[in-house]
């Protein structure tokens, strides 16, 4: 049974998506999608446990053995990622109706679920596949469905945002396709593991160099690495909040994972860091992302855009972890991938609650909100503390690993930069908290009521888990460390 899980993981949401179109009824569809997400989560967790205990699962799709056939290859890292994606989906989907009622006409809500499930399929596919071309396919599935999801947002700017994302996403996808093509040209295989083996003799060629370059830039666009992040703020701002929550927590993360895969599995650390010195490019860009993203966030007047820029900064931490080329660094990156998913997802859900009641995402409109929506405000505060990296929250754990990695490499200046950039988070988080806590309430706030319970509990599941995973790191820390070791080939 376990052997079939990787296939099931991808196929289940893929098959469930068209069913949504058939069902149509928004309530039924909502329940259906939620069930699928939960089932996927169960599969992902099973895979994760299995891989932790028994090692990699390899599944030959259609019985065609690799390298000729398509291989689904699940190691701890893949399973970890799949768990994140399905986990976030499991929380966001039950929440969906609340947000959906606001943003999307009722008769078209089944489309939301369809697109959502397709998006999930793409993300899971990217997570579990061992085939390079498959990656491209799933990237495109993800991208196309997410354009749809973003375009579902209210107002015309959602369309422009989606379009802008489409343009950038297509460029990214094309770059990835180019890279795969070049690699195929050099190796004649599409299976990643096989490709890695066959690349070894031709490593010195320009073609490989360029192929890696295209991979890097393509993936960087997808994961919104500075300065290729431009699609992101608009997309997150204008998409329905629930979509922002899901995408911010998963899409960029999976893209990050693809980059990690490319670096370690296909090209290998020796080539990437030894020959090309990719870190010379990646590290400055990551640091710039950390600072520019946080500073830009500080100047935002809309809370969703603020969170989007914050995401850009947080992605900088992850890529920084990658650029350190050490188990600790990569562990930090992967832990942050998980933790940031939780907190940013949670925060976007908080925002969804607030905009649901206030019908505005302007920070100024939230004055005195603490008195009217205490639990929501508290959730924002906890999530914000996690972004800052206060101990006891998940954000602290990531920071700990990253700083530790920097110190172990003897790069004290880097450790200091990480810590200082995390301070900038205080700036943009507190900008909001101050308004919510200390400003006298506006009329709009005075007339509002707390969000309904069905919208509060998913928020608190996400936010609560940032606290849980901020103290109890056995799961995240260990898994991420094993995943990092697996990726780096140390296991």
């Amino acid at each position, binding site marked *: 049974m376990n052997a079939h899980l990787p296939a099931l993981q991808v196929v289940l949401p893929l098959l469930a998506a068209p069913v949504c179109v058939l069902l149509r009824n928004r309530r039924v569809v909502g329940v259906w999608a939620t069930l699928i997400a939960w089932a996927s989560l169960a599969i992902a967790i099973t895979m994760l446990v299995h891989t932790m205990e028994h090692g990699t699962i390899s599944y030959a799709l259609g019985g065609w053995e690799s390298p000729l056939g398509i291989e689904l290859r699940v190691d701890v890292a893949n399973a970890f990622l799949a768990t994140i994606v399905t986990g976030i989906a499991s929380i966001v989907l039950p929440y969906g109706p609340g947000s959906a009622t606001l943003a999307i006409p009722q008769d078209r809500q089944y489309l939301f679920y369809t697109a959502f499930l397709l998006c999930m399929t793409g993300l899971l596919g990217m997570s579990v596949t061992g085939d390079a071309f498959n990656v491209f396919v799933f990237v495109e599935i993800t991208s196309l469905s997410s354009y749809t999801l973003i375009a579902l947002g209210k107002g015309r700017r959602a369309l422009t945002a989606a379009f802008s994302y489409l343009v950038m996403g297509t460029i990214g996808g094309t770059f990835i396709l180019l890279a795969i093509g070049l690699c195929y040209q050099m190796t004649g295989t599409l299976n990643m593991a096989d490709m890695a083996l066959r690349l070894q003799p031709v490593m010195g060629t320009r073609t490989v160099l360029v192929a890696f370059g295209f991979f890097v830039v393509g993936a960087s666009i997808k994961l919104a690495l500075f300065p290729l992040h431009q699609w992101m703020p608009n997309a997150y701002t204008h998409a329905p909040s629930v979509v922002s929550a899901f995408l911010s927590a998963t899409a960029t993360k999976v893209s990050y994972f693809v980059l990690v895969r490319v670096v370690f599995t296909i090209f290998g650390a020796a080539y990437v860091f030894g020959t090309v010195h990719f870190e010379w490019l990646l590290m400055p860009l990551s640091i710039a992302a950390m600072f520019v993203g946080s500073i830009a966030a500080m100047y935002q007047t809309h809370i969703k855009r603020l969170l989007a820029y914050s995401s850009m900064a947080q992605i900088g931490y992850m890529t920084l972890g990658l650029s350190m080329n050490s188990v600790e660094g990569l562990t930090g990156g992967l832990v942050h991938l998980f933790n940031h998913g939780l907190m940013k997802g949670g925060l976007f859900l908080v925002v969804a609650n607030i905009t649901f009641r206030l019908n505005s995402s302007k920070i100024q409109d939230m004055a005195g909100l603490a008195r009217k929506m205490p639990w929501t405000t508290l959730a924002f505060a906890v999530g914000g503390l996690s972004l800052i990296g206060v*101990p006891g929250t998940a954000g602290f754990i990531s920071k700990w690993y990253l700083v*530790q990695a920097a110190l172990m490499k003897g790069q004290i200046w880097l450790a200091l930069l990480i810590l200082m950039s995390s301070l900038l988070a*205080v700036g943009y988080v507190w900008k909001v908290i101050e308004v919510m806590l200390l400003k006298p309430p506006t009329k709009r706030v005075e007339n509002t009521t707390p969000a309904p319970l069905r919208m509060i509990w998913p928020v608190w599941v996400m936010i609560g888990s940032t606290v849980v995973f901020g103290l109890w790191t056995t799961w995240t820390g260990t898994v991420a460390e094993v995943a990092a070791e697996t990726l780096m080939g140390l296991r």
Partner: protein
Amino acid sequence: MTATLMMAAFFIPIGVVPLMWAARKMPDLRDGLMVVAGLMTFACVVGMVPAVSDGARPEVLFFQVFDGVPLAFRLEPLGLVYALVASGLWVPTSLYAFGYMRGHGETNQTRFFICFALAIFAALGIAMSANLFTLFTFYEVLTFSTYPLVTHAGNKAAKRAGRIYLGILVTTSVTMLLMAILWTYVIAGTLDFTVGGILAGKVDGPLVPILLGLFAFGAGKAALMPFHRWLPNAMVAPTPVSALLHAVAVVKAGVFTILKVVIYIFGLDLLYTTGGSDILKWVAAATILISSIVALRLDNFKARLAYSTISQLAYIVLGAMLVTPDSVVGASMHIAMHAMGKITLFFVAGACLVSVHKSKVSELNGLGRKMPIMFGAFSIAAFSIIGLPPGGGSWGKWFMALGATSQPSDYPFVFVYMLSSLLAIGYLMPIVARAFFLPEKVGPSTAHHEADAHGDGQHAQADHPETSIEDPSLVPVLPIGETIRETHLLMLGPIVFTAAGCIALFLLAPQLEAFLRPIVGGSQ
């Protein structure tokens, strides 16, 4: 058994929070809950004293967080003293706070008291932590749980103060304290507080002062100059906050951290032999003197006390940096001594504000005639802060200064301690002189509400209502005889209690010293 008590003491303050929230519509019940919780917590902490005094070191391990770094608690004498101070002063402060908050007609009292309980919870967490990670965790909890207290007034001044408060505390703790902790972790592979230190033999050369500096400045709550600005700014908070948190729990968390690091992370021998603390000694000495001089010139009552606190904290830091057994024990004793004295002073400052609407030193003329008990208590506490018998503060200073006689290069610090006593007289005794011996001024008083306590020119905003008595049973004066009109009993009681505590500490100092001696390897 002791471990059970420890966990009880740890969980009661946070356990009472939901109950208080549930009772938010019934202020009397809510406040009663807090007092009960305070009494229970204190009882638990006191209950541990005999065992710890006999050498027990109760431990509780929650779970591993990082490799070799668990969330764990372990109580030793220094931590117990800090816990005793924080929990022991919680009850009187609660009572005082009821009188103050109601008498002053403050809003958002539930939020206030809940944050208060959280702060105590964090302080106890700090006191009992078994390693630097646990300590840092609760250190930050303390920072954030006190933010709503500092900004309680909600006006512009409070907002500004809140920014400075958070800005300095978070900046220092993240860029320096956390850096130092991680650095230590990378070097030593552990963060446990260990008798004799964990860094001995692992660091040398300039790394010792650098690391120690990161710790000392990183513990921004210790308000070592130049990271002291948050403390006077935090004085916009309601006085109970200034009293318990910004004179006791929060600032002591800073110096407690420094002491813990010096004793259990570096170890006295390492610092003494390498001279790693030489620079910081001078920083602390400069802080003592400069802040005292600033205090001399301040007219705002609470601001003056705040600078006095900065100076007193630097005493403790200097005591720690002298790294002799005597000075370290003295510094540890001074945590309790200063807490008891300074809380009294703040109580009096707050009572002046609530009862007679005076917030400036120059407005206190003649108040001692009206309120002899209160200002008598003030005088005793002031003696303690100055370091004069019969105030407990004199013993702390004795041991710290004794530590400075151990080597000639430290001799100047003996004089720093002595000179600072004189400066303390200069800024505290005029208050006594004015209150008791100058005729009361007639004319409009300038302070009507807390916002003015921070006299940066930004006066209260319109959103802060004029002082009104929320509860008519709490008229904030207690008439005794014809001319004497003391402050309300809910405030006067705690004031007398803590002032008596100053004298009690003077008498109990030998026991305290014997209790603390094991932390530097002395006999039980």
